[in-house]
């Protein structure tokens, strides 16, 4: 068995009396696509913040390619090759779409190479019509794609997507799912999503979180049949 790209060991964070993430053991293989679901407040976004160093865990460790990155600075973790599209897109509002992609690509590439990558990503994500426009004026759905494109331009090995389909129309969701599958050919991904249709389009292995802990980890089909999962989503007797 090859070494996992990402592994967390007993990862926990406590805010006062609330343990937002409790002893999470996650193991992600190279080029794996993992969906992470769970009701609001399950700790999914908090887990992402821990993985990217935006929050420091109160217990546990994070291993990237077997190396301990727990406690590293956010930018240092990003440099190792973890990219994230955050739940609420973090963008440079007064800069253009093109600027975003270029800045992401330029960190590790020469100027001409960064220019080329920028053009390539604009093509790939379908941002051509808005490439020269200021990002602050775009709709939420478009901002999602701009951020996704920005992450791709940085070409990190592991990509975390926090609700990539939120605020999108049905067609846009389908397009995003296609894009995620395409990215997955070369990159490992963890995708947090509420939209079950979207999850069904892309999912192989699904991890379900509940109240900060991993409830179950299985294939999509098994998850859909799982009564415990139904219970947390619909309430104890909601499905009956």
């Amino acid at each position, binding site marked *: 068995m090859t070494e996992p790209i990402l592994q967390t060991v007993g990862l926990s964070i406590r805010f006062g009396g609330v343990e937002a993430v409790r002893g999470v053991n996650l193991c992600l293989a190279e080029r794996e696509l993992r969906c992470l679901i769970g009701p609001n407040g399950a700790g999914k976004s908090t887990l992402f913040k821990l993985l990217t160093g935006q929050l420091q865990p109160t217990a546990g460790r994070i291993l990237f390619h077997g190396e301990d990155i727990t406690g590293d600075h956010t930018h240092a973790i990003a*440099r190792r090759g973890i990219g994230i599209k955050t739940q609420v897109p*973090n963008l440079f509002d007064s800069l253009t779409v093109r600027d975003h992609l270029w*800045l992401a690509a330029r960190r590790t590439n020469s100027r001409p190479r960064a220019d080329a990558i920028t053009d390539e990503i604009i093509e790939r994500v379908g941002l051509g019509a808005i490439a020269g426009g200021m990002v602050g004026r775009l709709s939420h759905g478009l901002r999602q794609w701009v951020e996704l494109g920005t992450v791709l331009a940085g070409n990190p090995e592991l990509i975390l997507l926090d609700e990539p389909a939120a605020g999108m129309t049905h067609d846009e969701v389908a397009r995003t799912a296609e894009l995620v599958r395409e990215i997955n050919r070369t990159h490992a991904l963890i995708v947090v999503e509420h939209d079950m249709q979207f999850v069904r389009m892309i999912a192989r292995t699904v991890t379900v979180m509940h109240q900060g802990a991993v409830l179950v980890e299985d294939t999509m089909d098994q998850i859909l049949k799982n009564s415990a999962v139904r219970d947390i989503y619909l309430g104890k007797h909601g499905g009956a």
Partner: protein
Amino acid sequence: MKLRRVSPGIVATAAVMVAVGLGVPLVVDQFQLLQLTVFASMCILALSLGVVWGYGGILCFGQSAFFGLGAYTYAVTAVNLAESTLAILLSIVVPAVFAALLGYFMFYGRLSDVYLGVITLSVTLIFFNLMNSTAGDAYRIGTARLNGFNGMPSLPTFNVPGNPGRLLDPTETFYLVMALLLSVYVGLHALLASHFGRVVVAVRENETRCELLGYDVRLHKLLVFTLGGAIAGLAGSLFANWGAFVSPNVFSLSTTSQIIIWVIVGGLGTLVGPIIGCVLMQYLATELGTQQLANTSLMFGIIFLAFVLLVPRGIVPSLGVVRARLSAVRARPPA
């Protein structure tokens, strides 16, 4: 994207500077030339805050700390060496090193915007009080007496490098100051068009995203803050040379607030804006100084308030908005 095209605005501004630099000494008298020399020196100071605040997004209320440090460094070194070349260089290096140290604690300590403003303002006022209390024979650096609130008079002025006997005359000094202003202006634009400069602007826009892309936000802020300190220090040496005099007033509240007013009036987030704001406000200060009707500080306060309330983006960005609206109106098909 090829090499980024140089915007016509930058070329026009640089051309105006060259024209003023070469043309003005031919048409004005010596008094006016001296006036314009100090205006141009202050424009360099305005640019230093223009880049730190307008592009770096760093709220620095104490830019005068670096300006004053540059002025005093020049004064002390020039008095001791009786030669200005090293003094000018040190007047850039010393404030830059000080800015780097101060910035290290602020940015690596993750202080937020408001605290940056408070700390930088306090720092310049500490310098102000410190220099005010250096009266007496005990306070001397080498042969240079600091003289407390009376300041240091009769400073050696700029000489031709390596030739202390050959001082620059007012016209030559004006050429030098204009050349420095042009270099700082063009240099800053070149820097802002570079990878580093674009990251600095990105940091202003969204620190989290920069970090998530792998850029060290603290380092970028520290570097742009240090650069601002160096440029302000250069302006300080030009100012000390201009009057052959320096006093603790370079650190005062009115000095530091003036720099902020120049940038606000001219326009945050541009480089030509602070220059325009600086020239306008200094011209106004000179004119107001010639009459007794209204107090200059009071007038500055009123102008500052008026701009914050009515033209919060400053002259240059607002002109851009007006132009965009006009062209939108013209483009609209007649009803």
